[in-house]
């Protein structure tokens, strides 16, 4: 049996590599045909497209490795990641040159830099620490990032006066590096939990809580009679529409709220079944819960499709102003990334559910993962500190005060405190293993809230990002 498997694997392994290779070649060829027609080859959009193709190839190969465990995929996946990183570097350089400032001024530019950092860190984690499956997690994130970039306005916009400062670049670079390191520590902590024999259903519960959180956040925009509020889009100026300074104009997409409510319920179902299984001590509920996860993925995909269809260039009424207003996907990047992230998290859970033994075989040992997680946080924490300091210095020059207690600042401080707590518990109390991993995960959750949640849910001075 095992010998048959061993003989069989190289064959399927080569097939995937050949398929991915052909796919990349085909897409590049098609792109090349378009480029020949349209003129300059090495512009930002083409480079970004090339990066997307290579990242997608790398993602497919990493996933293939995650599922089948064929070692040879890794080599090709790394190669594809390298190629993608080179194209991505080209796009960043092109952007920098065109704009005349480092690419951190808009959400588009920040995503560009973030994806670059993520790809670079993936290669470092793989080469230096031997965490080979990390690409399974990071590459899909990179792909989502590049796709999101296509939706955002990408034209080089001149900088408004408050952003014309070197300290801004220092601040944002440090933030990107720190957040990428936090993301890495999160992924490593998750892998630790897998190696530490944490029960698969606990991962299901965690995925459920995460996805439920996303839908609850989306449902804060639920409007009476089942609508969903999204920001209106000013097509002429290509930016969000404002009622007055700092107050965005919302339009209501009818019926979409009901759909989100329904999906929210299906997302809650596996979680409820898990709790039921724990309370009744009946394993049967877990099998149903796993099926419910499958159903919830289907419905989440449906929600995403409907959101894409309804929010793309539609015209809707608003509660705050008369008349019809347009909206586009670019006006709601956070809802979109939330929907995609939810589906992605659940798919990762399915990967774990179906292929856990293979994953365990290819991850470093629990002790090693525990140590690497700690090391990553040792890198992230000083970066967080410097990021806050650079931000304070910039605020002092731009607004006249180094600390304003605005929500973004406060949450950055909270992030810092959470990691400070982690370090104290680890160093003085010797916290290792599970508790440390939970802490690392909590830290990253706070980072995500600071990055997305504060912008999306809480008002403040940080209107730029």
């Amino acid at each position, binding site marked *: 049996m095992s010998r048959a498997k061993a003989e069989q694997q190289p064959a399927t392994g080569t097939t995937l590599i050949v398929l991915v290779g052909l796919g990349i070649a085909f897409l590049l060829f098609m792109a090349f045909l378009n480029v020949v027609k349209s003129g300059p080859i090495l512009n930002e959009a083409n480079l970004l497209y090339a990066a997307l193709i290579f990242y997608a190839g790398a993602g497919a190969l990493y996933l293939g490795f995650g599922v089948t465990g064929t070692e040879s995929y890794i080599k090709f996946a790394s190669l594809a990641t390298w190629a993608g990183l080179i194209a991505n570097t080209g796009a960043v350089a092109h952007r920098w040159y065109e704009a005349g400032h480092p690419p951190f001024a808009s959400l588009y530019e920040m995503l560009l830099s973030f994806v670059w950092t993520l790809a670079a860190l993936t290669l470092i984690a793989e080469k230096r620490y031997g965490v080979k499956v990390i690409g399974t997690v990071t590459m899909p994130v990179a792909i989502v990032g590049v796709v999101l970039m296509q939706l955002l306005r990408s034209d080089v916009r001149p900088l408004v006066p408050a952003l014309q400062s070197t300290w801004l670049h220092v601040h944002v670079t440090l933030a990107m590096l720190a957040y990428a390191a936090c993301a890495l520590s999160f992924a490593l902590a998750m892998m630790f939990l897998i190696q530490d024999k944490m029960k698969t259903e606990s991962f299901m519960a965690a995925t459920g809580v995460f996805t439920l959180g996303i839908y609850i956040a989306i449902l804060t925009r639920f409007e009476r009679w089942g609508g969903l509020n999204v920001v209106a889009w000013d097509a002429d100026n290509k930016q969000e529409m404002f009622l007055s300074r700092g107050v965005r104009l919302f339009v209501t997409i009818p019926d979409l709220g009901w759909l989100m409510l329904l999906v929210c319920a299906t997302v809650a179902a596996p979680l409820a079944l898990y709790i039921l299984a724990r309370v009744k001590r009946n394993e049967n509920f877990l099998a149903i819960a796993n099926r419910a996860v499958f159903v919830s993925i289907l419905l989440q995909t449906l929600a995403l499709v409907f959101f894409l269809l309804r929010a793309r260039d539609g015209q809707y009424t608003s509660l705050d102003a008369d008349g019809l207003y347009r909206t586009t996907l670019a006006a709601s990047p956070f809802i979109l990334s939330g929907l995609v992230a939810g589906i992605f998290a659940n798919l990762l859970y399915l990967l774990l559910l179906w292929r856990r033994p293979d994953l365990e075989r290819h991850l470093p040992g629990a002790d090693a993962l525990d140590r690497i997680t700690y090391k990553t946080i*040792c890198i992230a924490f000083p970066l967080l500190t410097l990021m806050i300091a650079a931000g304070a210095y910039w605020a002092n*020059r*731009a607004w006249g005060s180094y600390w304003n*207690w605005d929500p973004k600042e406060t949450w950055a401080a*909270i992030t810092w405190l959470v990691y400070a707590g982690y370090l104290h518990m680890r160093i003085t109390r010797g916290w290792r293993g599970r508790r440390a991993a939970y802490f690392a995960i909590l830290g990253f959750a706070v980072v995500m809230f600071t990055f997305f949640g504060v912008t999306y849910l809480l008002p403040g001075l940080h209107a730029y990002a």
Partner: protein
Amino acid sequence: MALTLSSALRKTWQTLSSIKTGVILIILVVIFSAAGTIILQRPMTEPEDMQRAYSPAMLRLLDAAGLTDVFHARWFVALMILVSLSIIAASLERFPNAWRYYARPYKSPDEHFRRALPTQAQIPVKDEEHALDAVERALHKIGFKPERIVRTNSFSVFAERHRISEMAVYIVHASLLLIFLGGIVDALYGWRGFLMLTPGHQSSQIELRTGSTRTLPFAIRCDGAGEDTYADGTPKKYWSKLAVVADGREVGNKEIVVNDPLVYRGVRFYQSSYGRTGKLDKLILNVTPASGPRVNREISLSQNETVALDADTTVQLAEFIPDYVVEDGHVYSRSNEIANPAVRLVVTSAKKNSSVNYWLPEIPGIAENASSPYILEPKDLKTGVYTGLQVSHEPGQWAVWAGVVLMAIGLTFVFYVSHVRFWAVPVADSQGKRTLWVGGAANRNRDAFDVKFKHLVDEIHEELMAPPASAELETLKH
């Protein structure tokens, strides 16, 4: 009584300095600051918005609990003071030990220490002196400076690097306290306010955030303000030319822009806002006589200014309406923004003793433009601008920046510099054979240290195998 008091004090001290208290305090700070970002906060939010967001009972409750201005509430300040005290207590509690460790390094390991040390190796040797020489050469090779320790009944070799790393945590804690100190100084002695100036005017009255006014010992004069835009109309730069006036003379000036303030005697002036005052600065008119030769003339008028058009006729700018609307035969201003401006000019003839209300633009039914001896055409309307300056005095900020730099240094030592120590002692093992005991310790990054230790042991072996001094001896024996 005295005894119970001192025990109570000791108990308080122990509670305060425990790591558990520290973590609980951190959790409390996290919870309350998170609350402060979720609940609308008083000075930033308008009272009407607060009333719209919360029910009256809820608002009363939030106000009473101080949750509508968390970061300036007394109990939050108290919490921060507790955090500072906890840091101080925890550092003081652990500092003496660490200092002893730092000031008097442990150089000559005794038997008990040798047994307990986790990282160690035993190398069989022939000659003690020769062995210690080899250790010294090996340590030199890996970049350490070995030290020969001679005690009355023993001698050994010791080498270490980055002892300062043992103190790093205290550097970080001290830097945090320095930052807090800066914050406290600013909270007590600092102030923030606003100053609005129009070009040509000066003021020393700062409108403070608290609502009161503060008079500076010097005045700020605005010599000009403006806005530059990109080709697409988005703002590129706001600037104000400011001059500092003390005792009636100018003592300094600077053109400030966003991100580049003027600093004078610890008071900082930031470009904060810029706009139009809604008042008229200058109106440029093209004047043509209604009859006779058509001679063009350009005149410029400011509010209430009168200009002679000929020996007999004068024109006066009587009224400027920034956003006019006509209702029931009267002209009103809808707002103070220059959206739909109108001016009323009075053309007076001394001889005829008549005056005409000349409206620009001509408002039917009200304007008497037709009976004016001159035709007035608007050429340009220059409106007044103002510049809004954020003013702040933060004497504590230098402590904050010093704290930040110190913290960066401290964190570098905490995370990336480890205190590495090696000892080598010639001993006799259980069978009485001569061996060299080699031990090592590092306070962090133990994986890398284990590799280093193995490397050192290999080097010692190598040095023992090929000693230059005794090489001939070995060959002679064979």
